[in-house]
Every structure is written in structure tokens, then in C-alpha cells.
């Protein structure tokens, strides 16, 4: 036992629990956990969306078969080319656009639709709550991938349809969190005061509920973006994601799978980008959660 017994007793006689040493990362280092991933994400997004506009890169599609299968660091093709001769660097940039759009699109739909449904269910309760939550429960209990697959299959492969299909993952998840947060707030004194002073329901939600559950929803959103990016690739693996010749990081990995033993770069390069992005999102989400005291 490291702490001698008398130390457990504070001067006023109250029991004090041995405190865990604070992490050595304090002050600036702690800020670094927020700024480093945030800057990386902003730079990466700027590169994906801006680079092709200001700096000429080869087209991501319609490459010449004569250039097929070049190794990385070939002249003019920094990451090499894929089996049909498309420049991989260019496909990474354009695929990044698609990945970011899918990730943020799916999360935005979940945040708005799921968040509003969850808050309404949590705030008013009653029959609306019962109906909304049962529907969300069924969506959560049902293997969502089957639903997403069926929707992607029914609508046909395209980026927008992938976003719709993946929203069936994000809406119920956000709905649950928003509802839980709202119910926890409902008993608070300031909520009661607002209600007693005759404030309308939607005004209470927009002025009191949203600001209070925003940190929770925001940190969860960051995780959600990463999950959506990964799931988009999963749909590509099943042949229902972003259709060729378009690219996304996930679909590049899925198509690279076929030639993994001959040219692993086709899998490793987009995987590295996907992994770095999702790690950044998760670290950023964790750091913000810590700073905002979200449990």
C-alpha cells in the first residue's frame, strides 16, 4: 500500500481518496490534443477539395492503360497508378472529397433528424415518445447493414444513395443520445423555471435544451463522421458503394483487395488516409469530451 493511513484523513477528518496523478500532458500539451488533429483534418479537407482546383493533377478517371500499375514515386505519379492507369494521388484527393462528403452528410442528417426527434421525444414524453422510441428501437435492433444494403441495392449505387442508406445508422444513434440528454435535463431547476414562466416548448428546446446537450452531440458527431467513412467503404466491399470509375477511400480499398498480394500499395495508401482521418476525428472527439466534461 503506497499511501500511509494517516494521509487518507484530511485535516477536517473527512476521508480523502488517494488522487490519481494528473496526466503529464497539461496546458499546452492538452491543447495540442485538440489542435493537432483539428489542423490535420482541416488541412486534409482543404487539400482534397482545394488542391485539384489550384494545382493541376492528372484526372482521377479515364487514365491510359499504358500507365497502368506504376509503382509509387514514379515520375508524374507520386503514389503510382492503379491497374487501369489512373493516378492514385489524384484518386486519393477526389476520393477524399467523397469520403468527407459522405461522412459529414450522414452525420448531419443524423444530427438534425435524430437530434430533433430525440429532443421532442425526451421533452414531451407520452405517446410521441413511445412511438418515436419504438421506431428507433426497431431500427437499432434490426441489423442496420441489411437495411442499408437493401436501400443501396434498391436505389442503385451513387454517392447520394450511400448517404441515405447510411443515415439509417446515424439517425437512431443520435436520437437515443438526444433523448437521454433531454430527459436528464428535464428535472433541472432552470428547466422548471422556464416552464413556470410560461415559455413555449420549442423555445425551451432551442434556448435551454440545445445549448446544454450540444457538447455531447458534437463530440458524438466527430466519432460518427469516422464511422460513416468506414461504413461507406464497407458498402463498397459488398459492391453497393460508390460506383466505379468514381472513387472514395473506402471503395479504393475495396477494389485494391483483388490485387493485394501483387500490389499492396493500392490498399495501403487509401487505408493510411482513412485511418489517419478517423484517428484524428476520434482523438479530437476524446479531447473535446474531456475539455467540455462530457461523460
Amino acid at each position, binding site marked *: 500500500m503506497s499511501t500511509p493511513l494517516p494521509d*487518507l484523513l484530511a485535516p477536517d477528518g473527512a*476521508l480523502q481518496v488517494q*488522487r*490519481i496523478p494528473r496526466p503529464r500532458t497539461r496546458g499546452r500539451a492538452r491543447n495540442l490534443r485538440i489542435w493537432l488533429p483539428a489542423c490535420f483534418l482541416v488541412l486534409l479537407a482543404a487539400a482534397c477539395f482545394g488542391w485539384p482546383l489550384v494545382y493541376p493533377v492528372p484526372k482521377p478517371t479515364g487514365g491510359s492503360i499504358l500507365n497502368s500499375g506504376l509503382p509509387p514515386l514514379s515520375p508524374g505519379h507520386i503514389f503510382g497508378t492503379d491497374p487501369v492507369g489512373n493516378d492514385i494521388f489524384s484518386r486519393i484527393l477526389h476520393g477524399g472529397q467523397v469520403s468527407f462528403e459522405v461522412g459529414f452528410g450522414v452525420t448531419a442528417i443524423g444530427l438534425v433528424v435524430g437530434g430533433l426527434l430525440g429532443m421532442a421525444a425526451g421533452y414531451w414524453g407520452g405517446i410521441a415518445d413511445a412511438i418515436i422510441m419504438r421506431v428507433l428501437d426497431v431500427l437499432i435492433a434490426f441489423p442496420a447493414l441489411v437495411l442499408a444494403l*437493401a436501400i443501396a441495392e434498391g436505389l442503385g449505387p451513387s454517392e447520394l444513395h450511400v448517404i441515405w442508406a447510411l443515415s439509417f445508422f446515424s439517425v437512431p444513434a443520435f436520437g437515443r443520445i438526444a433523448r437521454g440528454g433531454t430527459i436528464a435535463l428535464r428535472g433541472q431547476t432552470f428547466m422548471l423555471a422556464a416552464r413556470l414562466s410560461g415559455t413555449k416548448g420549442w423555445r425551451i428546446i432551442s434556448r435551454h435544451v440545445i445549448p446544454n446537450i450540444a457538447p455531447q452531440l458534437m463530440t458524438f458527431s466527430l466519432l460518427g463522421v469516422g464511422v460513416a467513412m468506414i461504413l461507406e467503404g*464497407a458498402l463498397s466491399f459488398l459492391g453497393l458503394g460508390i460506383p466505379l470509375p468514381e472513387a472514395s477511400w473506402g471503395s479504393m480499398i475495396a477494389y485494391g*483487395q483483388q490485387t493485394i498480394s501483387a500490389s499492396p500499395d493500392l490498399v495501403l495508401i487509401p487505408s493510411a488516409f*482513412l485511418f489517419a482521418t478517423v*484517428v484524428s476525428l*476520434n482523438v479530437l472527439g476524446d479531447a473535446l469530451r474531456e475539455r467540455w466534461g462530457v461523460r
Partner: protein
Amino acid sequence: MAVAEELRPGAHTTLTRRVARSPGARLAARRLLAAIPVLWGVTLLTYVVMNLLPGDAAQELLGANATPAEVHQLEIQLHLNEPFWVRYGHWLGGLFHGDLGTSLASGQNVTTILGERLPVTGELLIYAFVASIALAVGLAVLAARKPNGLADRFSITVSMTGLSVAPYVLALILIYLFAVRLRWFPAIGYTALTQDPGANLRSLTLPAAAIGFPLFSVYTRLLRADIVEQMQREDYIVTARAKGMKPWRILLRHALPNSLFGLITLVGLNLGTLVGAVAIIEPIFSLPGVGAILIQSINNHDVPVVEGIVVVFAVVVVLANLLTDLLYAVLDPRITYDEHSAS
């Protein structure tokens, strides 16, 4: 009701009666009854979703070159021309007799298909679960022993990696490293357990790692955070310390059992989401489990096979969550699930 039973002549407490009246059995019965509408909803939703897809199985099976007459004939043969409710009613009626119908694509009995493929998926999932839980408990205890120590930093890094890596990326990297380069494990294929237990385990190790590593990361993170929090603020930990108990013993005997509750809940919840992981990982390793046939059947609009797989997984999820609740009662005697005493 209970009174009526007491008054019944000749009623004496036999073992079966005692089991039947135990809170656990009552809970199980109640939960199983409550699960029936949920399961029914899942089968209906599957039928509706599969029915909303454009085209039908006859068209998918015959391909784009089939004439309308051919398609129509196959539709009649497969009873696809009957209204939706009639088909669903037939299927549901069969379910009560334990008959899951026949595959539209192969004409095989769905029960037979599941009987062949479920053991593979089951073994894979059990392997992944047992390995990830065992490793997670070990690492979390090591990490929580000294927060911010070396083991703790390692656990945080590893679990962050596992949370961020896509399972299919992990699978491909594992194949490239351990199958293509090092040749320690077979890249694809499956050897039955009865054929050669060693080869069976080897053929399942990489897919189990791809499914299990993300689970392991989630569990480690949760368990570590929970144990650290308990060690920090719970009174019984202070008591144990005050009476001079060894730190390791406090950790293993007091903190860990309490922290296992959160882990058990999470494991129960995770089971349902694993259908997706199985559907992606199994085809990558060419495992003859339910994952591959699920995707194929969705593409073929083979409703009975999709239904069969969805129902089996839904039943497993319901049973797993029930088991979780019963385990709670075993682990914590204060939880009784008695509706009369609940305030």
C-alpha cells in the same frame, strides 16, 4: 394467481415448482414473451424491405436476357405472383412449424443452409468474443493498476488504434502480413473442426482477429475507465485500503467484478451489430458462413434465406440480452427483478 396455486390441493414444493417460481425464471419468461412482438416486427420489416426492392427473384435468377413469359412462369413456380400478405402469411405459418421455407435461388431448405453455415459463423464469433474479452480484461487490469503508467499509455494507444481502424482494412493488412508475407496462417478457406482442430483454429485466427480487435479496443477502454473511476471514488475501496489489503487484491477482488457489469451490457449490445462485421469479413476470407450467403441472397432477392438469417440473429440478440440480465442477478444479489419490491 399465486394464492390460487397455494390453495390447490396437494400442492407441495417440488424442484420444478421452485425453479418455475424463482425470480430468474419469471424474468426469463416475461422477457421471452416481450420478445415475441419484437421478433415479429423484425420479420415483417425484413419482408417489407425486401419486397420494396425493384425487380424480384425470378428476374434476378433468370438474368437480363429472360423473356417476360419466362419470368412470369418462374414467378408462378416460386409463388411470387401471389399478393405480399399471402406470401408473408405462408412464411409465418411455416415458421410456427419450425419450417423456414426454401431458398428461391437454390431450392434448398433454408434450415439446411443455416445448419451448414451457422456453425462456421458461430465458431468464428465465439473465438473472436472469448479472445477479445480475455485480452481486454487482462490489459485493462494492468492499465488500471497504474493510471498514466506505461501499461496504461499502451492500452490507450492500442484501443484508439482499434477504434479507428476499419475492420476490412485490418483484415486485408492481416492477410498481407501473416498470410502473404509470413505465411503463418492461410489467407482464405476453412477447415472443419471435425476434420483437423489445429487447422480449423488456424483458418479462423485471422478473421477472428479482424472481428475481435475492434471489440477488444472498445472493451479495454470501457473497462479501464470504469476500474480507474472505482479505484478513485468508491468507499469500499477506501475501506479495503484502510484495512491494509494488497492493491492487486483490491483491484481483482473488489474493483474488477464491479466493473464487469458495464462490460457485460456492452457485449450483449454488440452482438446485434456483428451481423454487419460477419457479412464483410467472411467473404474476404472465403469462409462458408452465413455472411457471404446473406449478401448473395439480398442481391438475389432470395427473401426466405435473408429472413432465416435475420431471425436467427434476432433470436440470438434477444437471448443474449436476457442472459445479460440474468447474469446481473447472479453477480449482484441486490438485483432481484421482483416487480413488487421495485419502487
